[in-house]
């Protein structure tokens, strides 16, 4: 039941997923040319690219929990592509701001990054994504070593939080949507934390010497059953 796809099947899955990940941007391009982005197309594109960055970040962060819960370990093979798509949409989001919104006004952009907390936070999240994108290849993993590579890539948790804060701080009053994204992120990070804690306890339990036969163990904390 937890059948691993063959190499050919995996390639087919990857190609299909790649195409699927391009659908949002394709739809926006089509709507741009159809003049169907509403009264404020630049705002629509800024929002759309931001939404999809956040969604891809969450999808990427969902791979590990999904793998653990389903036992479909091959899902891990899709994670790099999903993460790179998060970066792709983040780049579109940043480019929209840099080009369409600010029109390369470097002074105004620098001012924004320093003075507008939601932009400071958003820009930081984007800047932190860059090293992750650059090291998303086998060469970098070999070069850095698995452990260092992994600790570098754990910064994606912080990036996720920054992205939510960025969204939260930019809305005027209705925080429902950032809250929903935030709850999903909290669940994805919470699961990891919980699993870590389980693992830690398991290791402690495994390293503890067995009590002497016949000795009575007095628990320090009441066990709930």
């Amino acid at each position, binding site marked *: 039941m937890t059948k691993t796809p063959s190499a050919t099947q995996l390639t087919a899955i990857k190609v299909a997923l790649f195409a699927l990940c391009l659908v949002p941007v394709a739809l926006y391009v089509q709507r741009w040319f159809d003049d169907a982005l*509403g009264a404020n*197309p630049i705002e629509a594109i800024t929002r759309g690219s931001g939404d999809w960055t956040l969604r891809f970040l969450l999808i990427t962060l969902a791979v590990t929990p999904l793998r653990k819960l389903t036992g479909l370990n091959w899902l891990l093979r899709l994670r790099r592509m999903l993460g790179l798509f998060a970066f792709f949409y983040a780049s579109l989001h940043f480019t929209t701001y840099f080009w*369409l919104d600010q029109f390369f006004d470097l002074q105004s952009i620098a001012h*924004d990054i320093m003075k*507008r907390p939601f932009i400071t936070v958003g820009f930081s999240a984007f800047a932190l994504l860059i090293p992750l994108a650059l090291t998303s290849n086998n060469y970098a993993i070999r070069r850095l070593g698995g452990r260092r590579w992994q600790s570098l890539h754990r910064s994606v948790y912080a990036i996720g939080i920054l992205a939510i804060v960025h969204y939260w701080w930019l809305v*005027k009053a209705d925080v*429902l949507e950032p809250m929903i994204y935030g709850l999903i992120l909290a669940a994805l990070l919470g699961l990891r934390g919980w699993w870590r804690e389980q693992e830690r306890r398991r290791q402690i339990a495994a390293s503890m010497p067995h009590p002497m036969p016949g000795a009575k163990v007095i628990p320090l904390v009441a066990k709930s059953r």
Partner: protein
Amino acid sequence: MRMPNEQALTPRHQAMRILRPSDILPSEITPRALFEERRRFLLGAGATLAAGAAMWTGLPADARATAAKLGPLARSPLSSDETQTPYKSVTTYNNYYEFGTDKEDPAANAGKLAVRPWTVRVEGLVGKPRSFDIDELLKLAPLEERIYRLRCVEAWSMVIPWVGFPLSALLKQVDPQGSAKYVEFVTHYDPKIMLRRPVLDWPYTEGLRMDEAMHPLTLLTLGLYGEVLPNQNGAPVRVVVPWKYGFKSAKSIVAIRLVEKEPRTAWNKAAPSEYGFYSNVNPNVDHPRWSQATERRLGEFRKRPTLMFNGYAEQVASLYQGMDLRKSF
């Protein structure tokens, strides 16, 4: 009246669309050129603005025939001659949080609002408090077309041909007392058809100082583009205060109260450090989270500088003489 013009215009419309180069932002160039050309043509032919607007949207004339025309409309020297924002943008890009917080939500949801019968109570510190029926309001004073800039606190702007008359004409009817220093606007709230989440403290309320309310620019607004207000734009009656950020211009008003103390207002209650009572358009005082120095006029690609008092400084600056506009933001 409309048919000959429409026939004359249709082939032009198509020709323009075909010739449109795909590498130019359609929202930037085509609509403006088309709009100005058609409007000149229609005005020259003696057609009404409403007809021009209906044709502009590219909808069949029937699609907008349901909106009641208002008229005759007097032109006003207070009108701007800037390019007007297309009817479609004015009526599909709205902040009317009771009907949803996305820009497209009000156009989708405000249809549920029953705008008749409708009465507006004018009360408080007045000699003759009374209610006005909407039909009475429509005839209370000569209707004028007022083409105003609208600057939203979110740093976008429009140019809208409103229809209405000065609020002062209504206030004079009720004989304001000397103790009345402020005007509070209370708007319609019906949880059965409107947002129930407490995004703002419903019902939405707004307020003006008495001299602001009596200013000739302050418009009791009943229509736009020559027709009665679409629901999403605050039907059936709203106020428009063009030198202040858009949220000061309360929609779907049910009561106007003259009071002594500065009234609390919906956005001020939600975030006092971000939305002051005055909320005059001011490029020098930023919103705590974003700059107010520039704005995007809908339909334009590059941002344009925001003008002091939204370009109405000549008319209203004297109202704020001696005030620190950084403190009274």
